[in-house]
């Protein structure tokens, strides 16, 4: 990966993201042309432009579609870099951001809010708050289980993640089967498969800034992430305080995935396949893997959300179904390709 190729790739992906987002705003029950989109955008940031857009178009673009599409980009980028970081942490190519229990913990929180009306004093924020709380609770338990003699063991981290996910899923399922509210059950199912429909300008600030912070923190530590991929012993001899660095990664990744899951449910597959796809293109150096993953994840989820809105319009498809349907076969194709090793170095 040369600097020039990297710059070109970043440029191309940025352009691709912009085009995808414009296109995503256009698509929907009310058709909108690109020129109107840019016109509305420019007028919102105070540039003097000719006003041809109707009030309805204004609202659809600015209040409904744009926040949603921006949230899609943020969530895609966040899940992709979280996946990349987790794969380095556990040195395991099948790891995704939810492997530490985030999504099952969040599901418990969300289900409690939807079915049992917990945290109702928080109003519209109850769902996000409970999901975030559940996510962090699950990770904390997993982390404590993985500590032995003051060290964090990777294999225990993975196994504790699986065990805690099972327990939390059982709690969610228990609440689901004992509930009599058909509407509520449907709402929980929808939430668990992920949806960006709730996006508003007021709710995308936290995911955006959390993403920005975690992205910068990870990028600043790209050397350590690279060293981690080489193995514990080598990372240690390169001067890395393994335990401290692991705790740091768990902390920032859980924070980011917790926030993301709270805002849009647990959208699967993005955090697993995007890092692999990126490594196939740019190699394993995290200096390149992180920014490219963020952009690819963003583009991918913008498209996935577009399909989710369009596929069975006017109904909405949960986005998790789209990511799995597109992601699964793609993953299998990658699996069959002989050139990409999935990290086992064959």
């Amino acid at each position, binding site marked *: *990966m040369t600097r020039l190729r990297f710059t070109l790739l970043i440029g191309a992906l940025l352009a691709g993201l912009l085009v995808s987002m414009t296109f995503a705003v256009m698509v929907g029950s009310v058709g909108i042309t690109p020129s109107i989109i840019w016109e509305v955008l420019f007028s919102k940031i105070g540039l003097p432009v000719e006003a041809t857009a109707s009030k309805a178009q204004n609202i659809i673009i600015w209040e409904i579609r744009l926040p949603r599409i921006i949230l899609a980009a943020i969530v895609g980028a966040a899940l992709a870099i979280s996946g990349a970081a987790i794969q380095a942490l556990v*040195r395991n190519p099948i790891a995704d951001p939810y492997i530490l229990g985030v999504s099952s913990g969040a599901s418990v929180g969300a289900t409690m809010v939807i079915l049992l009306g917990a945290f109702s004093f928080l109003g519209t924020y109850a769902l996000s708050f409970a999901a975030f709380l559940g996510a962090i609770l699950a990770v904390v338990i997993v982390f404590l289980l993985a500590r032995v003699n003051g060290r964090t063991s990777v294999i225990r981290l993975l196994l504790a993640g699986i065990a805690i996910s099972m327990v939390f899923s059982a709690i969610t399922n228990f609440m689901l089967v004992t509930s009599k509210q058909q509407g509520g059950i449907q709402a929980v199912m929808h939430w668990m498969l992920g949806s960006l429909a709730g996006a508003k300008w007021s709710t995308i600030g936290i995911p955006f800034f959390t993403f920005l912070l975690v992205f910068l923190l990870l990028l*600043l530590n790209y*050397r*350590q992430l*690279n*060293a981690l*991929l*080489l*193995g*514990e*012993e*080598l990372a*240690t*001899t*390169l*001067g*890395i*305080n393994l335990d401290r660095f692991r705790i740091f990664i768990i902390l920032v990744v859980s924070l980011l995935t917790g926030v993301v899951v709270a805002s849009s449910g647990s959208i699967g597959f993005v955090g697993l396949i995007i890092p692999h796809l990126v*490594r196939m293109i740019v*190699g*394993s*150096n995290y200096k390149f893997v992180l920014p490219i993953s963020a952009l690819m994840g963003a583009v991918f989820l913008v498209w996935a959300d577009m399909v989710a809105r369009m596929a069975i319009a006017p109904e909405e498809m949960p986005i998790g179904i789209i990511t799995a349907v597109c992601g699964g076969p793609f993953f299998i194709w990658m699996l069959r390709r002989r050139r990409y*090793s999935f*990290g*086992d*170095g*064959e």
Partner: protein
Amino acid sequence: MLQVKNISFSVPEKQILHDISFSMDQGKFIGIIGPNGSGKSTMLKIIYRYLKQSSGQVMLYENDMEQMTRKKIAQEMAVVSQETPVLFDFTVKDLVMMGRTPYKQWLAQDSKEDFAIVEESMKLADVLYLKDRTLGQLSGGEKKRVMLARALAQQANILILDEPTNHLDIEHQLQLMDLVKELPITIIAALHDLNLAASYCDELLLMDEGNLHMKGTPEQVLTEETIKQVFHVQAGISKNPFTQKLHLFFYAENVGRSEDK
């Protein structure tokens, strides 16, 4: 410069190292030899602080290594361990660049100096021609040399090698040993091949069942008597006519007997 004081190491139900003490001087090439399972690798891992001893101290320039930061240790000591990882795909030059990690602060870019050091290290380890290949495409021996180049890029005062000649053909064995011997730094190497140990090391530590059996020059340590005692084979000891270094021949104990008949 490096002092090992009363090091013991145990895992549950087994003591691996028994109260080992020795010290080594700057610029020497020190070989650690001994049968399989005698504790060579464990000893090295404790020196480079991957494992923590049960008791005892390792002192570097009179400082207790337990008080030093990982970063500082990595600037003083570079390690080529036995495992050559192949996980994920790094290019050779990216991998060698990782040797510069201990010198990097947050936000620091790879400087011109780093690139020069990396290039020089690759040249020394004879892997420059591989620089754009990925690790997965290399043979076992090439990987080993890449790991050596990475360790050289660390520019440490001490280089620790755990069986560096494994997987290498004879040409690259000698090439690597020559290269390492020329370096103006302290070398500590666990070696299996006693003839390599005899021809390159200034000093040998002979380990046996977790004890330091003997320490001395190759001539002092590699005698028929100690080899029989520790390795349980007969040895004939002569000189390599070309290098004037010790050369050892081995034969199983019962060979001589059957010929006597």
